[in-house]
């Protein structure tokens, strides 16, 4: 049962006069993992950041075309980027826990959005988020320790828990494992697989193996263009485009 969660129609993204994304149209479905792959500088991260309007925070960045979340234009004047980002969460390349305790890291989102009306409710959110992120058992006895004191992989799972705590509908992940070792990476991948039941997940990745392991659909970007988009199994075994084939067989990238 897949339904379309995010729809992009003829999207261009500019940084000042430079065009970083050229006429991309794509449908992203609920309940599965969609991977964006491509050589570095191909615009996959740029496009990801336009899906929750994080590009707004970069001076000179401009998005044209249409991006719809459940049929609503997220760039419409009536759309509040603050409310949008509560619905479309994001996990970054390098783990970026706030310099606060583990508890406070997760409580931050629910608190600003007023999602808990009592301490007990907040505690429940903390526990369920950490549990979903597979971190609860490791940190339940030291919730007041600094988030920055955790290992890299734990920090990244903390950041995922932090995103989940706001109960978003979509989770965007920008190369979430690029700073982690293989064991931590495996844990995160496992986690992504579990989470896809409840969220639409988009993951930008540098590694084709990772895309093949975790995603159901894959989009291949090259020089700001969406070259090919389809079932992951199709893309990796039987790509339609010559460029995709060259990339996945390692001829460049």
């Amino acid at each position, binding site marked *: 049962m897949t339904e379309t969660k995010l729809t992009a129609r003829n999207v261009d993204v500019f940084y000042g006069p430079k065009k970083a994304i050229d006429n991309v149209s794509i449908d992203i479905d609920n309940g599965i993992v969609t991977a964006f792959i491509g050589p570095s500088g191909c615009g996959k991260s740029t496009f990801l950041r336009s899906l929750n309007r994080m590009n707004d925070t970069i001076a000179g960045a401009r998005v044209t075309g249409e991006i719809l979340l459940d049929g609503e234009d997220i760039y419409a004047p009536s759309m509040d980027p*603050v409310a949008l980002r*509560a619905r479309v969460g994001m996990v970054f390349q390098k783990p970026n826990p706030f310099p606060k305790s583990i508890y406070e890291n997760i409580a931050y989102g629910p608190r600003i*959005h*007023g*999602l808990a009306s009592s301490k007990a409710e907040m505690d429940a959110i903390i526990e369920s988020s950490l549990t979903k992120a597979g971190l609860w058992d490791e940190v339940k006895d030291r919730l007041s320790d600094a988030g920055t004191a955790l290992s890299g992989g734990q920090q990244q799972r903390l950041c995922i828990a932090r995103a989940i705590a706001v109960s*978003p509908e979509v989770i965007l992940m920008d190369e979430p494992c690029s700073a982690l070792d293989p064991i931590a990476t495996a844990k995160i991948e496992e986690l992504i697989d579990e989470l896809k039941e*409840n969220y639409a997940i988009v993951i930008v990745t540098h590694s084709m193996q990772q895309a093949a392991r975790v995603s159901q659909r894959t989009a291949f970007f090259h020089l700001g263009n969406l070259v090919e988009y389809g079932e992951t199994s199709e893309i990796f075994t039987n790509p339609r485009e010559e460029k995709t084939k060259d990339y996945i067989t390692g001829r460049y990238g």
Partner: protein
Amino acid sequence: MSNSTFSSPAFAKRLAQRHAAERRFKLIGLGAIVISLAFLALLLVIMMRNGLGGLNWNFLSGSDSTDPHIAGIWSAAKGSILTMLVTLLLSFPMGVLAAIYLEEFAPRSRWIELVEVSINNLAAVPSIIFGLLGLAVFINTFNMPRSSPLVGGLTLALMTMPVIVISGRNAIKAVPPSIRDAALAVGASKVQAVFHHVLPLALPGILTGTIIGMARALGETAPLLMIGMRAFIVTPPDGITAPSSVLPMQIFLWSDEIDKAFVQNTSAAIIVLLVFLLVMNGLAIYLRNKFEVRW
């Protein structure tokens, strides 16, 4: 699903409140800047209103007097120029040489660490303390002439030197190592590489820092009060050992006068001092923009 959380009226209401808080916060920030700038404008306008009428040739070329209508600032200005000359001649070479040593030659040792801590602290020591040093050492110990540009210049030089050392080190640090390597590779000694290649490239940055340090010294009053440069000087000083006043000191002395007519003199002298400082800082900015090299 959770969609309902974010479309509920409670959430919308909270969102509106949060955006109102955002606007308030931004407004407070803007307000802080406006208040600061308004204060600056008020200060300048009041000095202009009080002082512009008093700016004429007689004022600029005259010396201090008990009569506000014939009192002028040339004697104080000349005192300032002589004092600054002494300061510059001492602090510039000393500061540059120290900066070169610390940046290029100094071995890592406890002594050098002590020098660095010393310099960073001296840059933050209250200026009046330098005045006490000048009084105790130059006047009471070395019997140098009180109230003279020589002692004033020496005192201000000690105060200015750390500023020049710090800016000098930053300028030298900004010269890429490849320049040194290139000079060494053609057989220059380390000293030659530094003096022939690194120093000329760092000079604009050093000069900028020097001008800023000198501008600060020019506006300084407190340390000079300590060494007695508050004499009533009716003839311009004819040398660096003659009793003398300086511009900021003249402002201070006039500000104490009971006669209301001195308000105009004081404000006019302030305008002259600010123009001097503006020119110096303008020069520093010009130098920085003109010669700044991005490596």
